[in-house]
């Protein structure tokens, strides 16, 4: 028995969300009195052994070049082989773009119940006399787009958890992992990747710790310079409300909410956004929400932790300045 963690990579680098699942998976293993092992597919340029500091003891690598790009069908087949050979009882993914493609397939392959979008460690204490279905292995996940949570009980022998990005804090200790080559049967990929485009040098919205977001209150695209400047001093990603993306003031990959990205940063700063329920659906899992709006009645204030009622055009530059001062940058 072991806990197996899927280490997701991009261009040979371990993704930030992988560090979260490694930390989480090690904790699950500790809880179950077993060891955490990792599986990584394709070639990796980073030092995998160093990932031992997140608590993983052994990493199985299938360094086949045809696994350098995601083909969910192929990935699930290979991970299933590793899971079977290591006797994994709990398998952990990040509920990121790749996890959402692979975990459901593996769930079918191994007949293993899947909880996607988990936000906490599983509850394995089955002493709950008042709640007969709540026994065994129960995992808390977000439902109703962050407006509620559900405790999902998994009844199968093998369990799969896909952890929400940013839901579990990475903790590094010391230790090194033993990296072993795993000999898997790898079929030909059916999905061919012909092109990849990535915004370079910017903070990735879905992974960002801090997000600075602005809405129609900013009046027009020409006013976004100060939003970007604020984001820059905070090392934050930028986001926007839907009408802003629809009007092409900002690119669509910044649109958050029900129909855009769902994010859960540590800090979400909403400027000139009214806080419509569909907007909140994408951001309400943020840990701290700051709202800047000239209308004291804006619904967003009800969902906020901190707020300023005032004119964004005056407040943003002052805020940037104050943060510069705080961080000691000129």
């Amino acid at each position: 028995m072991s806990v197996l963690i899927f280490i997701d990579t991009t261009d040979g680098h371990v993704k930030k969300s992988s560090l979260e699942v490694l930390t989480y998976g090690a904790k699950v293993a500790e809880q179950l009195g077993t060891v955490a092992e990792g599986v990584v597919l394709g070639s990796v340029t980073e030092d995998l052994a160093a990932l031992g500091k997140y608590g993983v003891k052994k990493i199985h690598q299938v360094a086949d070049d045809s696994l350098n790009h995601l083909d969910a069908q192929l990935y699930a087949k290979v991970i299933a082989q590793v899971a079977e050979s290591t006797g994994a009882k709990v398998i952990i993914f990040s509920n990121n773009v790749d996890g959402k493609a692979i975990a459901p397939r593996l769930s079918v392959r191994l007949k293993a119940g899947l909880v996607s979008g988990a936000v906490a460690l599983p509850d394995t204490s089955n002493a709950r006399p008042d709640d007969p279905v709540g026994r065994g292995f129960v995992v808390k996940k977000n439902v109703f787009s962050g407006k509620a949570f559900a405790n999902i009980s998994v009844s199968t022998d093998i369990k799969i958890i896909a952890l929400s990005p940013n839901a579990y804090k990475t903790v590094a200790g010391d230790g090194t992992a033993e990296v072993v080559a795993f000999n898997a049967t790898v079929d030909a990929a059916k999905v061919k990747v012909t092109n990849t485009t990535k915004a370079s040098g910017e903070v990735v919205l879905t992974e960002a710790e801090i997000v600075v977001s602005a809405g129609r209150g900013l009046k027009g695209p020409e006013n976004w310079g100060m939003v970007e400047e604020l984001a820059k001093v905070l090392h934050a990603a930028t986001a926007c409300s839907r009408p802003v993306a629809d009007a092409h003031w900002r690119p669509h990959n910044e649109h958050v909410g029900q129909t855009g990205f769902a994010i859960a940063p540590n800090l979400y700063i909403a400027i000139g956004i009214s806080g419509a329920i569909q907007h909140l659906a994408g951001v309400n899992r943020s840990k701290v929400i700051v709202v800047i709006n000239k209308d004291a009645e804006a619904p967003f204030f009800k969902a906020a932790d901190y707020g300023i009622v005032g004119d964004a055009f005056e407040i943003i530059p002052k805020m940037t300045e104050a943060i510069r001062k705080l961080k000691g940058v000129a």
Partner: protein
Amino acid sequence: MKILVCISKTPDTTAKIAFTDNNTKFDVNGVQWIINPYDEWYALVRAIELKEADAAATIHLITVGAADAEPIIRKALALGGDEAIRVNADSHDSFYIASQIAEIAKQGGYDLVLTGKETIDYNGSSIGGMVAELLDQPYVSLATKFELAGTKATITREIEGGEEVNEVELPVVVSAQKGMAEARIPNMRGIMAARTKPLKVVEPIAADALTTVAGFGLPPAKAGVKLVAADNVEELVRLLHEEAKAI
């Protein structure tokens, strides 16, 4: 070209979220039901566009749900699609639902199965991948574009901070999100036509549920907003740094 579009029923985006039966059931009291937005706006509309470009294409809709899902599937038929299938089962387990969809998909021999990116109530984002595995077909998830040339599909999918273009031979299962198509509104002709389109009800096959909902809960209420005066932005920054430890 045969397309199967998976349609689910979800509470309206503005529905009040509450629970009954000792927090084990979603409170449906006063809830307005809609077609899950991703299924309607992106999966279904893209299927309709594909049919508009290829008169020989057929679109079937499938929903796994009780009789109360029928208004939703009729509404979907009013937008487009040739016929609908309702598998008469009420379940919230992804594997169970996927097993039903896969069974219908096998029988129908579809070239393309389209799902939404996720349901806005259970947020599983899992059923498309499960169906693909059950069918042993490739799966491209979170797709923002879908183009077809003969039997080769060129699909753009979301990756962290960007996009990736995938090429794959049909048959394939694809989950759709924003970018795939522009939402449409059903017109009178569509609504009239939908009344006479076939809606087949079939009984479910035996399948396991791998998970159950032990209970629901609401996140703890926010303590309330701490307001800072507009002329005291430095105080906000201090609070974020010292109190919230967010910067």
